[in-house]
């Protein structure tokens, strides 16, 4: 196991899905470098992952939505875990759609957190991995980014834009042997979605994490839908003609 021990950087390490992914990785003994805002939460999380089997857990507290801090984040990673092989971007924000329609500040924040800052930090890591000609960049976007819908098009457009960004990045890094994986979860029961009405279609974060970890262990796919059913659902949704789609309010 030691031979294929991974070194994984998690951006947004305290998010609901990230925590479950980290637990599975810890159980396999992998090394983790966690970045999130709250030092307190990072300390609690670190303790948990060490007990569960991670061989080493480093933490760094930063607000990734703020691009000014990115250079310091990147610098910390390069100094303390220079041999990292995987970067997982797991942070995001989802406000109530109504708020993003009435407040331009909230709209811009949604784009800043989910898209602008994400592309900024990934650009730093991409250059480094491209030069090292190894590794994997994985980022959690959303099925909401596959088509603009009445009920969450602001969040959806930010995540959709991130998916497009990753698509281009994948093509750019392919010759260097760097893998770029787009992770598109359906709705998941985490703190981010607590303000929504949870229903049976909301997945358990543990299940989503299992899918992500399995995909990280392999060379494929490029785009991961989790739970898997969303791949088929979104294929269908994308094929609804726009004239009909605009009348739907879901």
């Amino acid at each position, binding site marked *: 196991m030691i031979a294929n021990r991974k070194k994984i950087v998690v951006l947004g390490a*305290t998010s609901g899905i990230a925590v479950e992914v980290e637990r599975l990785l810890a159980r396999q003994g992998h090394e983790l470098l966690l970045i999130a805002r709250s030092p307190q939460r990072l300390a*609690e*999380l670190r303790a948990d992952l060490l007990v569960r089997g991670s061989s080493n857990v480093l933490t760094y507290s930063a607000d990734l939505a*703020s691009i000014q801090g990115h250079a310091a984040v990147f610098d910390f990673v390069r100094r303390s875990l220079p041999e990292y092989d995987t970067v997982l971007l797991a942070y995001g*924000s989802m406000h109530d759609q109504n708020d993003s329609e009435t407040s331009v500040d909230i709209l811009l*924040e949604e784009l800043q957190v989910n898209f602008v800052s994400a592309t900024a930090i990934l650009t730093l890591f991409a250059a480094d991995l491209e030069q090292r000609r190894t590794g994997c960049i994985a980022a959690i976007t959303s099925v909401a980014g596959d088509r603009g819908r009445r009920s969450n098009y602001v969040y959806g457009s930010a995540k959709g834009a991130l998916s497009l960004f990753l698509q281009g990045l994948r093509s750019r890094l392919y010759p260097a042997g760097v893998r770029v994986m787009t992770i598109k979860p359906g709705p998941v029961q985490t*703190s981010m979605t607590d*303000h929504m009405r*949870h*229903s049976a279609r909301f997945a358990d974060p543990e299940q989503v994490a299992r899918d992500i970890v399995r995909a990280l262990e392999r060379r494929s796919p490029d785009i991961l839908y989790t739970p898997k059913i969303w791949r088929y659902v979104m294929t269908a949704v994308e094929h609804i003609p726009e004239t009909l789609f605009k009348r739907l309010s879901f």
Partner: protein
Amino acid sequence: MSGQSAATLRKVTVAAPPTTRILSWGRYPKTAHARVYKPAWNDEVREILENAAPDSLLPYGLGRSYGDSCLNAGRGLIDCRRLNRILGFDESSGVVRCEGGVSLSAIIDVFLPKGWFLPVTPGTRFVTVGGAVANDVHGKNHHCAGTFGAHVRQIGLHRSDEGLVTCSPRENSDMLHATIGGLGLTGVIAWADIQLKRVSGPWIDADLVPFESLDSFLYLSRESDGRFEYTVAWLDCFSGRNLRGIFFRGNHAAGRVENVHRKRGPKVPFALPGWILNRYSVKAFNTAYYKLHARKKGATVLPYDSFFYPLDSIRQWNLLYGKHGFLQYQCVIPATNMDAIEELLERIARSGMGSFLGVLKQFGSAPPAGMLSFPRPGLTIALDFAMRGERTLHLMQSLDEVVQQSGGALYPAKDARMSPALFAASFPRWRSFVPYIDPKMSSSFWRRVTGAQ
């Protein structure tokens, strides 16, 4: 937009719309809650408590309490299941520090491979540490290990009035004793230090002994308690005064270390029609169960999960009882009053309403770990009854008479209907517990049995 302004708009912890109805394990009573908070971090708990109204909240775990002690009808719940981090483990002493929402199942998964096991475990692994403390749960080793609370070294307790309070035998020891068995009313458990137990591996040397009278059960109990760490009996509750059952006893198997692979068992998909469990089907089940196990009598080596958690192998087994749910009746009868046990069994058999889950266990004489702890010297008996309305409630009232006359007690974690009088008789010191209740906590159970607002 500059990055900095982003931070200022961040959301505060919100209450989830109570869409999925939260029920207890017995699925009775059917209550609705006004708010359900789902904090993922301890700092959010503090925020929730600060902003709450008096008497408005109750911590909720995996919902394995059978009645209404984990419910707070019309008010709020703090769902603690995401507070599930293991904060530290001392390899030399075996003390683990967990957040309140860590399940006993998770503790087993992490620590059994390292040779550590729970000091005390109830009949399901799907309870949280917070729930195990709040109900001061017991297990098959009560006669030698006492209750779960006896192995709690320290607790960090979120109080709405005092913030995070550390409770140990040296510091705030009275608050520790109130919190153990305190039904979640003293605050939200941020973390607890639990003393785990060294075991040689995941296997149990088990021994099955059929018995055919109360006397032979008592004899088996006496004879086994010194030699076996774990004892419990399944009983056929249709047998009345001609009691019959199977006595299970066991010790951790020395030397057998190979892993036990957890199998994912079948799942009851939805609430079955109520008529499926009727007196004939259950009677037939009980007879078959008895005969099957009587044939398997003798020594055998079992994986720990089939010894401790046979019911966990059927997921959502509570749905077997149909949409009206079921009630569990668990009482303890003082050792000097064995006639009362026979009277209880007689009344149940006569009613024809018994279930396939009769459990009998002799408690040990360990002093109670908490102010409102249920276990006390005597014989405890637990039975399930499908909820069939008045009929079921009448039977239970008639059982209450026997329990109260015998000087026994009823277990709050299993209760949805005991009278205030029986509660007071079961827990004569309950008034001295009241000052320890967090001003912002309340529960359906507590209001029902004490008349609190």
